[in-house]
């Protein structure tokens, strides 16, 4: 009878070492959590209590959140619009086939990276310093945060264009802008439309929380209710946010299917 060892002894040792390493890292991370077990033991009761207070929600409060809700949608829409306008030049700089030289390419990529690695809430904190608390700071934060994401996908769309179509228009004797209009725009339009809609949907979700740091929208009401321990209002606001996010996701999915 022959044995069939799945791993060589060397592999077994390596795998064991790998597992021990992973376990050590996880243990280290667990210790770092500084868990206070008395709180954890208490948490199911806490959660039950919390939900008991939140539901049924305070429907009477509904009238007061319509305004902030509209504000949230406005922040997302305006932020997205601004982001698109900013992203188009960034994308052309950051696409290998349309950029001017290595320096402009690097600039485009830098703008992208910085925009994407700082969260919209942090951008909001920064813009609040500049323009004061409110929706404007929120819209600016959404815009600046979205530029990285949007221009990255735009640039990928631009890099994927078929050179042959551009060449065909060039060969007719058309100038720069006509080549852009006939050779490039039709090719990138579906990508641009899809990305715009997709980002708008993401921005709706992000805009629901900007108010927590003071940048306008329904998050502000949420924060006030939490600080005031008005849990039945919190319950209502969470339900409304759930509704808005689900609806915007459905709209976005429908529209993206249409433009594809």
């Amino acid at each position, binding site marked *: 009878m022959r044995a069939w060892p799945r791993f060589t002894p060397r592999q077994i040792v390596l795998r064991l070492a790998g597992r021990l390493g992973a376990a050590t890292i996880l243990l280290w991370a667990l210790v770092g959590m500084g868990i206070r077990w008395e709180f954890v033991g208490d948490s199911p009761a806490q959660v039950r209590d919390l939900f008991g207070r939140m539901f049924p929600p305070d429907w009477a409060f509904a009238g007061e959140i319509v305004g902030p809700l509209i504000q949230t949608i406005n922040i997302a829409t305006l932020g997205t619009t601004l982001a698109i306008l900013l992203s188009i030049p960034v994308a052309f700089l950051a696409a290998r086939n349309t950029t001017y030289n290595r320096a402009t390419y690097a600039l485009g990529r830098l703008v992208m990276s910085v925009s994407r690695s700082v969260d919209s809430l942090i951008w909001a904190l920064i813009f609040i310093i500049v323009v004061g608390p409110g929706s404007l700071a929120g819209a600016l934060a959404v815009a600046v945060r979205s530029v990285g994401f949007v221009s990255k996908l735009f640039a990928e769309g631009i890099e994927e264009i078929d050179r042959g179509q551009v060449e*065909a*228009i060039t060969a*007719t*004797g058309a100038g720069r802008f006509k080549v852009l209009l006939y*050779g490039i725009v039709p*090719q990138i339009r579906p990508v641009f439309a899809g990305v715009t809609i997709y980002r708008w949907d993401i921005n709706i979700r992000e805009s629901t929380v900007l108010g927590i740091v003071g940048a306008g929208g329904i998050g502000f009401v949420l924060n006030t209710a939490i600080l005031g321990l008005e849990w039945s209002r919190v319950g209502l606001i969470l339900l409304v946010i759930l509704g808005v996010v689900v609806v915007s996701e459905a709209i976005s999915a429908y529209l993206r299917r249409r433009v594809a």
Partner: protein
Amino acid sequence: MLEVVGLVKTYPTGDHALRGVSLTVKATEVVFVIGPSGAGKSTVIRCINRLVEPDAGSVRLDGVEITRLTGAEIRQARRQMAMIFQEFNLIERLTVMENVLSGRLGYVSLWQAWRRRFPPEDVERAFETLARVGLAGFENKRADELSGGQRQRVGIARALVQRPKILLVDEPTSSLDPKTSEAVMALITRLAAEERIPALINIHDVALARQFAQRILGLNQGVFVFAGTPADLTREALDLIYRGAGEELTSALGA
């Protein structure tokens, strides 16, 4: 009349694509260029309409030196030379009509181009040309809904509405099946004759060249090694043209 003298092109990659190419295409003549892939056929055409910048040599169209033109002058010259592509290169997401009208882009303002408001003569001409290539009624279809043969017909229509002084045709049938290839080639040569437009046609398929050509040039590694009629295209001539190209002669003969 197109006169090309001593054309040289070395790509930045170091490929010596053309090592001194000369040819003439007279008033209403159709000239075929055959040769293995990589011989430099596409590069010749692209140097003529300056999609590729030649390193040396001269290209004259009706006496105008093309290689010295700059900016707007190049675009002016390109309107006189219509190109037909191997991969059709239609704007896939635009309608057939927009694709055909794009042949007139050199003649309309940016605003007209943006609004798709081409002069009525151009539109009339586009309808006529579509009918002549056998695509009457296809104007509102999108290019990506068409078959390969239909796409190339749109490419031909786009070239014809340019009212060019010469057709530059780069392997128009290489993406098509044999039957469609023959039909497309017949269409190109017939229309060129009817419109009295000369044409320079690259082609991979020797049988098709034999069938439609009066004059054939053979290109190998960036130089012409053959010039003659289909009758002159003997086995020895073919071996010379396809020298160093391995099995390609067999495929070019359609065996």
